[in-house]
């Protein structure tokens, strides 16, 4: 076992602070000398007025700082006092004006003159005399304290209200209707009568399965006289596999589902379809929603009964991974926190109806969410791996191979076993070939970097070392291996080390060398410890002298190593007198043990090459099998879970206090799960979200379901139930529904059914003049809200009406995605050049973030960049142009016309059929007359042309685009 670090000592706390406190601060200005005051009045006051006060004065306090009164800089801004009298180095104002830190420069536009900076320095050195005094307005308190928050409606425990008694003796009135009608009666309104059967059927079909009823289905429902006909229809539709395709899509809006990353360099999420299919299947299976939540947040950590369940749960975690990540962001720590922020934002809106990301930079201005709560959650996601690493130029997500079953599992298991056998053998052979290859590499030309593999023996670059303490990366000398080298910054002597480890393939005598670049500022006694078969030896290296080998490597001596051993070389900066510089380590075989040495080295090399080739050949098919394993976008646990520090003003590099991982204080209750040290806390987070006492989750969910059924919610701001969200129109009903979710064991289908069987849902959409006068937004639901078909419904309805709809259930749908490397230009081109041609249901249409299906883009499809619980309904001329001129609409109209003409019908029958296929009803006499006249006027057109026009007009008509 080699020592991890030789440094067990801890730095004794320095008490420099004492120095500062002895200087003290005068209470009144009179104590200052004439010279000091004069300096302030003549030099400093005008300077502050001219350069600082605009942003740090009575009007504005950027960064929370005021410089127009003494109390301003004493108290300071977000980062504490701006100035420490007498102490230049600890005065942030001096750091800022010196412009040394590129991220912290004031004034921001132009550096002050040298004289002005010197004046400020002198002022601080003089003890910062400042006669200006005034009252500092107390910091604006955040919108709401956690305590106050607990009494806000959405954070209060969910009540169990009794349905009001409505002045109505009708026993068939549902409990939900009693809540609705009670409010209507309060305002003197009357519920609309039930909708016409044809309207109701069309409404139910589109709402539950997103498709129009066929003419036969319309007729069948109209003919069904049984009292429970509608109940039967609802049950039938809830069992349809199309239900999951419609309702899963609702959830995909919330999960900001997409199949590419968008943002800067867009990457193809070629496996995201698995998550989409997972969601569709869960909705069809009516998986309890609490389980659905657990799987999406912590599926990788849950127990499983089978490989297929394991697969499903891994796939579910894509919920956390498929955000609009800008993988190209160069500052990878910032990227890491941006990803965390996106996860918290999505999770907050999706499950809790909270806009948490406001608390990244400051306590939430309106909601009872202090910054500490945000970073408590951030710790959970910081302890979760979403990015593969934090070093790639363009980062990657975490791909996880899915467990398999049956033959496929056996094949992969066999391949894995084979690889585990073959790969180490191949590595050993290659290591042996390396140490046996003694070809001298020509000395590198000055200024040109060379790669480690250009040198003989075993060469490890500095990036492969385990670092202790802070080592700085540099390219200052032009002489280095690979990307650059590391140095100790000539500071914190005795607190830094770099340790290299290698595996020795052959026993024998080796020369060990260190690579560095010499310079006059280097250490003359850099300690390098070489671990070898006989023990350890510490050698001091003079790094001011040029290395002897190719101007890059310096020999540390010759040592014996045993085959199979893993010796180390450790460089420290203990007792060094200049920069310690490390570029790499080389182990070079000098003399092999006679016992194992081949008689003919050249022959052995040839054998080695042949053996390597053979191993590679054997590995190729194995690797192919392993590469073809199904992958899922997932997250995984970070090996070292840890809490997060608060970031002041959200700036990644400005760290504040560390906050233990946890949840929102405002939604704390008895039995909040505790996060173990060794875990990220995602399991506990999911448990907290679906805990019966969490006041938010079921309210948010009940409100979403209501919205998906009625088009608007009991709370209209579906993703925001906080103080800036809208107030609930029926708070008791919302609590009642939230309770129902728990009583129904989190079954969504049960609640959907309950709501659809109300009179409110089945009411006519005809205008209710009384209600329009006093309830213009129709929040009291006196009539059913007339709704526009959304993008998917519109496209699917056109395809269904023309007969061209491909109803293939589940499965990938991006042509050309296959086994493409997602992180490649080719993958981007799949998206950029994509032509949307398939006629599958819209839920399967490739959901790229950049290249969107034109119809989706125009007709208010969800913005896949954030949680989108309620779609907008915009009306723009470009939509009309699409319906008038787009080839898709024209072609589908023609297909529909051809299908119609294939029926043996007279003109009247044709008109009847065309209306039922598209609008789900018979034409009105006027419509019949209009179409008849149109066809008659077009005698010189073919029947196909005429009927194509009729279908296209029907597709564009208000009754096609809206649900009554």
């Amino acid at each position: 076992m080699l020592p991890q670090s030789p440094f067990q000592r801890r730095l004794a706390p320095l008490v420099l602070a004492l120095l500062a406190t002895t200087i003290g601060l005068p209470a009144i200005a009179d104590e200052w000398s004439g010279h000091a005051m004069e300096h302030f009045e003549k030099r400093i006051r005008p300077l502050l007025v001219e350069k600082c006060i605009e942003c740090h004065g009575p009007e504005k306090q950027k960064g929370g700082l005021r410089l127009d009164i003494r109390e301003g800089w004493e108290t300071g801004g977000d980062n504490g006092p701006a100035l420490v009298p007498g102490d230049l180095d600890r005065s942030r104002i001096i750091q800022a004006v010196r412009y040394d830190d590129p991220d912290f420069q004031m004034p921001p536009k132009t550096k002050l003159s040298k004289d002005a900076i010197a004046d400020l320095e002198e002022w601080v050195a003089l003890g910062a005399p400042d006669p200006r005094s005034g009252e500092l307005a107390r910091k604006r308190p955040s919108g709401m304290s956690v305590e106050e928050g607990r009494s806000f409606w959405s954070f209060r425990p969910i009540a169990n209200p009794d349905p009001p008694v409505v002045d109505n003796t009708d026993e068939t009135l549902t409990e939900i209707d009693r809540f609705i009608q009670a409010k209507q009666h309060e305002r003197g309104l009357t519920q609309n009568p039930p909708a016409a059967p044809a309207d109701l059927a069309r409404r139910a079909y589109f709402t539950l399965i997103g498709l129009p009823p066929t003419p036969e289905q319309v007729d069948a429902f109209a003919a069904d006289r049984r009292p429970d006909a509608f109940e039967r229809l609802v049950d039938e539709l809830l069992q349809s596999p199309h239900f999951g395709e419609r309702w899963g899509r609702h959830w995909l809006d919330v999960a900001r589902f997409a199949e590419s990353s968008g943002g800067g360099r867009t990457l193809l999420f070629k496996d995201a379809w698995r998550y989409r299919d997972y969601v569709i299947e869960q909705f069809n299976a009516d998986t309890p929603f609490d389980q659905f939540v657990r799987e999406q947040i912590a599926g990788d950590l849950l127990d499983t009964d089978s490989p297929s369940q394991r697969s499903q749960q891994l796939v579910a975690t894509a919920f956390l991974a498929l955000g609009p990540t800008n993988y190209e962001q160069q500052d990878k720590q910032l990227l890491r926190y941006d990803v965390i922020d996106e996860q918290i934002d999505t999770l907050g809106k999706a499950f809790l109806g909270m806009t948490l990301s406001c608390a990244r930079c400051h306590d939430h201005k309106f909601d009872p969410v202090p910054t500490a709560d945000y970073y408590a959650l951030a710790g959970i996601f910081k302890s979760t791996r979403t990015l593969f690493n934090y070093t790639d130029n363009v980062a990657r997500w975490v791909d996880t191979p899915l467990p398999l079953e049956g033959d496929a599992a056996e094949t992969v298991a066999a391949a894995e076993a084979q690889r585990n056998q073959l790969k180490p053998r191949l590595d050993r052979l290659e290591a042996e070939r390396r140490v046996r290859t003694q070809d001298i590499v020509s000395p590198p030309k000055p200024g040109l970097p060379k790669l480690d593999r250009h040198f003989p023996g075993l060469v490890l670059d500095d990036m492969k070392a385990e670092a202790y303490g802070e080592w700085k990366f540099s390219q200052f000398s032009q002489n280095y291996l690979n990307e650059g080298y590391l140095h100790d910054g000539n500071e914190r002597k005795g607190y830094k080390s770099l340790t290299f480890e290698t595996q020795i393939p052959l026993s024998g005598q080796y020369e060990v060398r260190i690579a560095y670049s010499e310079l006059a500022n280097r250490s003359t006694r850099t300690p390098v410890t070489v671990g070898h078969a006989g023990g350890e030896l510490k050698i001091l290296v003079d790094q001011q002298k040029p290395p002897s080998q190719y101007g890059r490597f310096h020999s540390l001596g010759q040592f014996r190593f045993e085959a199979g051993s893993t010796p180390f070389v450790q460089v420290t900066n203990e007792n060094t007198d200049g920069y310690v510089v490390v570029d790499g380590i080389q182990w070079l075989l000098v003399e092999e043990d006679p016992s194992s040495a081949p008689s003919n080295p050249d022959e052995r090399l040839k054998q080695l090459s042949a053996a390597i080739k053979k191993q590679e050949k054997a590995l190729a098919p194995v690797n192919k099998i392993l590469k073809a394993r199904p992958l899922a976008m997932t997250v995984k646990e970070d090996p070292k879970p840890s809490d997060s520090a608060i970031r002041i003003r959200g700036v990644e590099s400005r760290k504040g206090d560390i906050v233990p991982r946890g949840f929102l204080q405002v939604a704390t209750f008895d039995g909040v799960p505790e996060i173990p040290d060794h875990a990220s806390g995602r399991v506990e987070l999911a448990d907290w979200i679906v805990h019966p006492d969490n006041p938010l989750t079921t309210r948010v969910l009940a409100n979403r379901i209501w919205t998906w059924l009625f088009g608007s919610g009991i709370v209209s701001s579906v993703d925001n139930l906080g103080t800036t969200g809208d107030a609930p129109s029926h708070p008791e009903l919302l609590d009642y529904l939230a309770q129902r979710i728990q009583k129904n064991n989190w079954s969504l289908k049960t609640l959907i059914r309950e709501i659809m069987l109300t009179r409110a849902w089945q009411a006519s959409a005809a205008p209710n003049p009384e209600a329009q006068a006093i309830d213009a937004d129709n929040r009291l639901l006196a009539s059913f809200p007339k709704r526009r078909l959304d993008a998917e419904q519109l496209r699917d309805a056109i395809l269904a009406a023309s007969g061209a709809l491909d109803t293939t259930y589940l499965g990938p749908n991006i042509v050309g995605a296959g086994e493409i490397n997602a992180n490649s230009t080719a993958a981007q081109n799949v998206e950029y050049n994509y032509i949307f041609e398939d006629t599958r249901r819209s839920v399967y249409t490739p959901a790229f973030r950049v290249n969107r299906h034109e119809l989706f883009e125009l007709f208010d499809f969800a913005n896949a960049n954030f949680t989108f619980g309620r779609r907008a309904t915009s009306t723009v001329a470009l939509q009309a142009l699409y319906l008038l001129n787009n080839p898709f609409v024209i072609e589908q109209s023609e297909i529909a016309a051809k299908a119609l003409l294939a029926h043996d019908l007279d003109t009247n029958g044709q008109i009847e059929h065309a209306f039922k296929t598209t609008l789900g009803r018979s034409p009105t006499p006027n419509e019949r007359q209009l179409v008849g006249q149109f066809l008659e006027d077009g005698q010189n057109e073919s029947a196909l042309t005429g009927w194509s026009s009729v279908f296209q007009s029907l597709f564009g008509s208000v009754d096609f685009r809206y649900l009554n």
Partner: protein
Amino acid sequence: MPPNPDVSAISRRDALRHMACGFGYMAAAGIASGTANPLQSRVPHVAPKAKRVIFLFMAGGVSQVDSFDYKPLLHKNDGRMLDFTDQRILAKTGMGSNQRVMKSLWDFKQRGQNGAWVSELFPHMAKHTDDYCIIRSMHTEGVAHGPATLFLHTGSTNFIRPSMGAWINYGLGTENQDMPGFISLSPALGNGGPRNYGNAFLPAAYQGTAVGRAGMKAADIGIKNLENTLQSPEQRRRQFDLLQAMNQEQCQNLPQNTELEAVLGSYELAWRMQANAPEVLDISNESAATKALYGIDEEPTDNYGRQCLMARRMAEAGVRFIQVNYSDNSNNPAWDQHNDMPEHKEHALAVDKPVAGLLTDLKQRGLLEDTLVWWGGEFGRTPYAQKNGTGRDHNPTGFTVWLAGGGVKPGLVYGATDEFGQYAIENKVHMHDLHATILHLLGMDHERLTFRHEGRDFRLTDVHGSVVHDIIA
């Protein structure tokens, strides 16, 4: 192209007048959602100096030290290894590094009455130094193209925010209800793609309309779905009348339904756009002299020249924000010369004459007075060679843009970078400041142009930005 259908069919107009939904409202509603017309022209916060913007986007990052920011010290030190703070290495490691100084490949000369230094890279633009204000002290956020391009357009490297053109349409509405208020000509799909002209959380009416896309020939581009080659004009007209007659029938029993009125209104507007918009984009009737001014029908200027001329026509037609992209769909867009600085010349040849032609044309038509022209990229380039090679890397810490017309001081050279041209040091103008200034010129206070979303008032400039009054005439 088939002739456009007759838009003034009297019979339909008569029919509409008697519609239950009420054509009277519809005419005023234009392309409305809900009850008010979101694109109604609005009264600005402060007296506007510009009515519209033409943004000539140089994707990839033009090298300031090879174009407008003359640095003699680069010649003197050419080839020397010096210490620089490279932004990419800084972002990844927090370290400085040693880099090889690289002189400009193009000679600089003083030009115009104001004596501004411009290199040989842009001989045509160089003739106009008295028309525009050169800002040499730009700095921005984002080291890579994606983040920096998004920052330029939306004020955020990573968060989903509305683009500047959407904010401007939200603030000012449109001058021509028959045209979109925000058009991006030939935008790229890469580096943020549609987010660069998207509305994010603003209502969809404010989104930019892409006309063509990067890589398409300018001669082939147009507003989507404006034309219809599959149906005869006669069929289209008859079909349109049938559609609106059916709509009228279907709205019969729905008095005062403003949403449905808006739907019917959108069809009417679409019908008018079919007639009017193609003409705005059609440059065939421009004189030979005008076309020559923009370098149309000659290479390599034809493509960008056509786009610039279309931009002028759009400006005349009252489009509020017109972006003319010089870009492509790659991850190293257009001006991104990491290892081949001489390639800058190719791009300069493609845009120089068209841009200069646009300035001349706007000026001679009196349009430059109230049209703000903005030329520039998402960042600049390093004064040293990248990885000791023959190109320059990205530099967000100091670069040059210019503004012309629209109330900006012509001929002013504003701000400065350090002696090597890497960092803006004097009169620094952050991208947020540029945004604030452009809004100001259009009559909007960037701190008051807000939109409430998820309980927060959002701004283009977030909590930053200040108007650069020094450059305003």
